[in-house]
């Protein structure tokens, strides 16, 4: 009978195969008599011997993980070592042995439980994920005290491992050639076992709850993308998942192939394929997918959900962190882009009938000058730590740009006078997202270093259609010719004044439409990190010449529908 279970997707990928069940190793609740030594001194000796053994084992595991998966993953076992030396942990165990006359096993187990309970009270997933690490350490100590062999798997054929739980140590020791995937009853996506599974590339679903009676060797599907597990699947389901598995493998090989490749057209024209990010957590995806830079760093996250404004120092640390992690690759940081649709307790915002047409982004920053100056100072200070590009959102007039530039110039002078070093080579750009800016691009281009087109807002403001309004989605589909013509104006102005222009809206990562931007002379595309490998592979198939022909055809078309049909067609011919 087919059984479908839903768990937490912990490591992506699809696996199909026979199941191998790991029985939980038991910790003797009633330790054998020889362990119930009467003398606490002897028990403490048992314990310290097991402790030294554990330190050696974990050191080996840390070095192995470091060699295979790098320093970041080895950190897991560095923290285990730190716990094995933890004065409070050891003092508690010693107390239980010497004062409460517990044997070494019970003392270790009860001390582990004590700290696990305290961690539960933190009520934060990230900290609660460490519960498994304590269990892992206690498990290891108990096995050492009892003199048990540490369990290794002896799989006869490639299998899907099912367990109540897997400790980080067990996960790190899994044989990649034999373990197709693993599923566990407990666990969370943030537990160290899940983190290790992701870096080992082993699909995993955790937190499934009690597993039904499984027979060794039963056929099973693990979908680590959605968290679905299917036991004894029927033929049609099986073939559906076989397709899904191939698609996933193909996508992964695309990522591996293109992650480190330069972004160039077939005729060798370099294009910068960059990533959009909205938080520091997004940086991992940026690096895995091999982005050429960050084309849009939205700074709003730093300002939301908090009672007071982030200080200059805090902002400086965040900007510096991103610039340093990108190691000299360009980072476009957009200044604060909020308005009356967001509640920010420390910024007084008037209720507005149309917040998207109201005091937002640069308009707000110029009204709340102290807020803007703080952000600018933090950015200028960070400028010497990488390749910084500052982007001003929602600029409609040259007066707004000049007002912002005046503030930036004043802050620069202040820094120079006080001897604080700031880079001379950072760049300033404006977003092209209001039709006015596109129409005045010739003027703007003389006063900035670059343009960045926000296709979502440019469409919203060109069509006068709220993009949150579901009955107006037809006005937001694809690339409208009117929007394309506005982008063309901006691109021409950029070329005439020898500045660069990029696109950071959703359409930059559209596999059919992006060539139109290349055809207009746009040299930077910024998108969700996951889209980068696909766009890079498609870029390698087209030439600048054909892209410009497509662009001039498309901008003369009457509807976004027509442009879409045309571009889907040419792509398949080429």
């Amino acid at each position, binding site marked *: 009978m087919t059984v479908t279970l839903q768990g937490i997707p912990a490591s992506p990928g699809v696996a199909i195969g026979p199941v191998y069940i790991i029985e939980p190793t038991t910790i003797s609740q009633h330790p054998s008599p020889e362990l119930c030594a009467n003398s606490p001194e002897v028990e403490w000796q048992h314990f310290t011997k097991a402790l030294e053994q554990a330190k050696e084992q974990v050191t080996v595991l840390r070095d192995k993980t470091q060699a295979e998966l790098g320093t*970041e993953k080895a*950190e897991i076992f*560095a*923290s285990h070592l*730190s*716990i094995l*030396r*933890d*004065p*409070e*942990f050891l003092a508690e165990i010693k107390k239980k042995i010497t004062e409460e006359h517990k044997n070494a096993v019970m003392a270790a187990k009860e001390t582990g439980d004590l*700290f696990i309970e*305290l*961690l539960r*009270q*933190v*009520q*934060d997933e*990230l*900290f609660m994920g*460490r519960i498994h*690490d*304590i269990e892992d350490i206690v498990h290891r100590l108990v096995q050492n005290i009892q003199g048990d062999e540490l369990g290794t798997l002896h799989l006869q054929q490639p299998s899907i491992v099912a367990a109540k739980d897997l400790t980080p140590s067990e996960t790190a020791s899994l044989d990649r050639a034999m373990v197709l995937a693993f599923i566990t009853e407990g666990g969370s996506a943030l537990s160290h076992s899940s983190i290790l599974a992701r870096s080992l590339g082993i699909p995993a679903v955790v937190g499934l709850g009690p597993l039904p009676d499984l027979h060794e060797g039963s056929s099973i599907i693990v979908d680590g993308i959605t968290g679905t597990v299917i036991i004894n699947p029927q033929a049609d389901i099986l073939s559906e998942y076989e397709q899904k598995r191939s698609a996933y493998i193909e996508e992964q090989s695309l990522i591996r192939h293109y992650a480190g490749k330069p972004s160039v057209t077939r005729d060798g024209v370099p294009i910068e394929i960059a990533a959009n990010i909205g*938080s*520091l*957590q997004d940086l*991992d995806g940026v690096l895995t997918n091999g982005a050429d830079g960050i084309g849009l760093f939205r700074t709003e*996250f730093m300002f939301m959900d*908090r009672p007071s404004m*982030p200080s200059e*120092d*805090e902002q400086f*640390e*965040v900007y510096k*962190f991103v610039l340093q*992690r990108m190691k000299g690759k360009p980072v476009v940081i957009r200044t604060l882009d909020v308005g009356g649709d967001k509640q920010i307790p420390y910024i007084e915002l008037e209720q507005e009938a149309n917040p998207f047409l109201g005091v937002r982004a640069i308009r707000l920053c110029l009204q709340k000058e102290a807020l803007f100056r703080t952000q600018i100072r933090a950015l200028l200070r960070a400028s010497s730590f990488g390749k910084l590009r500052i982007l001003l959102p929602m600029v409609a007039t040259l007066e707004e740009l000049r007002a912002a530039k005046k503030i930036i110039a004043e802050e620069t002078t202040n820094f120079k006078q006080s001897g604080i070093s700031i880079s001379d080579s950072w760049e300033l750009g404006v977003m092209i997202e209001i039709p006015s800016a596109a129409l005045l691009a010739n003027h703007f281009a003389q006063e900035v270093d670059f343009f960045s087109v926000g296709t979502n807002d440019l469409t919203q403001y060109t069509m006068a259609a709220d993009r949150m309004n579901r009955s107006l989605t037809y006005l937001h589909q694809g690339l409208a010719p009117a929007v394309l013509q506005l982008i063309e104006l901006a691109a021409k102005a950029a070329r005439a004044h020898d500045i660069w222009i990029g696109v950071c809206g959703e359409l930059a990562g559209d596999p059919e439409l992006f060539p139109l931007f290349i055809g207009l002379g746009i040299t930077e595309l910024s998108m969700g990190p996951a889209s980068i490998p696909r766009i890079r592979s498609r870029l390698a198939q087209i030439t600048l010449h054909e892209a410009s022909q497509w662009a001039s055809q498309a901008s003369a078309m009457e509807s976004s529908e027509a442009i879409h049909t045309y571009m889907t067609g040419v792509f398949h011919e080429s």
Partner: protein
Amino acid sequence: MNRKTYTIINPTGFHTRPARLFVDTANEQFPDCQVTVIKGDKVINGKSLLHMLTLGVKYQEQVTLEISGDEEDKAQEVLGAFFEAIHHE
């Protein structure tokens, strides 16, 4: 004894990695210092990773670092820097 209060700016809080670095540095570089970390009404041993983790220091929370012993000023500077920084995952 010296004492200073910090606000955590690391977006994911003061989790395992920074806590481990903090604790290991405290133990290795300042063996003769007593290191105490205070959050609200909780007072813990800053040389214990388990104590640091159970303190559960999150983004935007304030912690006070109290240090006494040899080189306590240097320890405050070195260890305090962990609270003021942004850390890799």
